[in-house]
């Protein structure tokens, strides 16, 4: 199953830990996971546990406009994309969860 996740809150919000836990569990069960970060959610790219999801096979994309507005530096393995990437995730997944 393909799982899509939208995260719009910054790392101090409990949403981040929930997304990490759900994504890790889903990957362990063999599901595809794609995460899109926008608004303050883009700050999560610099949380070690969060960016570590890439090593577990989670696809992470961020809204580059929000990244630029917040002067967040790039992280290897994370796609600095656009709202089109979000549209693709929403369109392609079987389940979609929003954390905001």
């Amino acid at each position: 199953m393909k799982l899509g996740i939208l995260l719009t809150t910054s790392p101090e919000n409990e949403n981040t830990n929930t997304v990490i836990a759900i994504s890790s569990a889903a990957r362990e069960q063999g599901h595809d996971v794609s995460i899109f970060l926008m608004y303050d959610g883009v700050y999560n790219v610099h949380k070690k546990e969060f960016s570590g999801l890439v090593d577990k096979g989670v696809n992470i994309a961020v809204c580059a406009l929000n990244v630029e507005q917040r002067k967040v530096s790039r992280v290897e393995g994370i796609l600095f994309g656009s709202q089109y990437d979000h549209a693709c995730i929403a369109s392609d997944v079987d389940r979609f969860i929003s954390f905001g």
Partner: protein
Amino acid sequence: MIMHASRAMLTGSYHSGELLKKITVIVRNPPLNTRRNAEALRMSVGLTLREDKVTVIFMDDGVYSATHMKPEFINFPSSKKEFEVLSMLNCALLADKISLDKRGIKNLIGNVKTAERDEIVRTITGSDIVIPF
């Protein structure tokens, strides 16, 4: 946190050989203290890029975003363009009547339609994805 099953197989429309999804974005925060509502509208425009059917619902304090505001007076960027694009793309823009009445709001931006709670519920339950922003 809200989870929604993809029900495109049951509810989606058919276009160019692909099933399209119905996506509903719910705007419910006050408009001028953060960029959240403006970002919700920008995201809604983005979600149309795969030709999915996008509906925006304004509820609670989010209904203020659907009124004639002059955010530029406080150096706050306007969402006029997003409203225009969403209208151009025939995206439904619905404002919850109960939220409007509670706040005494009568005048909405031209392309935003007042909707009874029944219609709001029908829209949400008929969607494949609901994003409360």
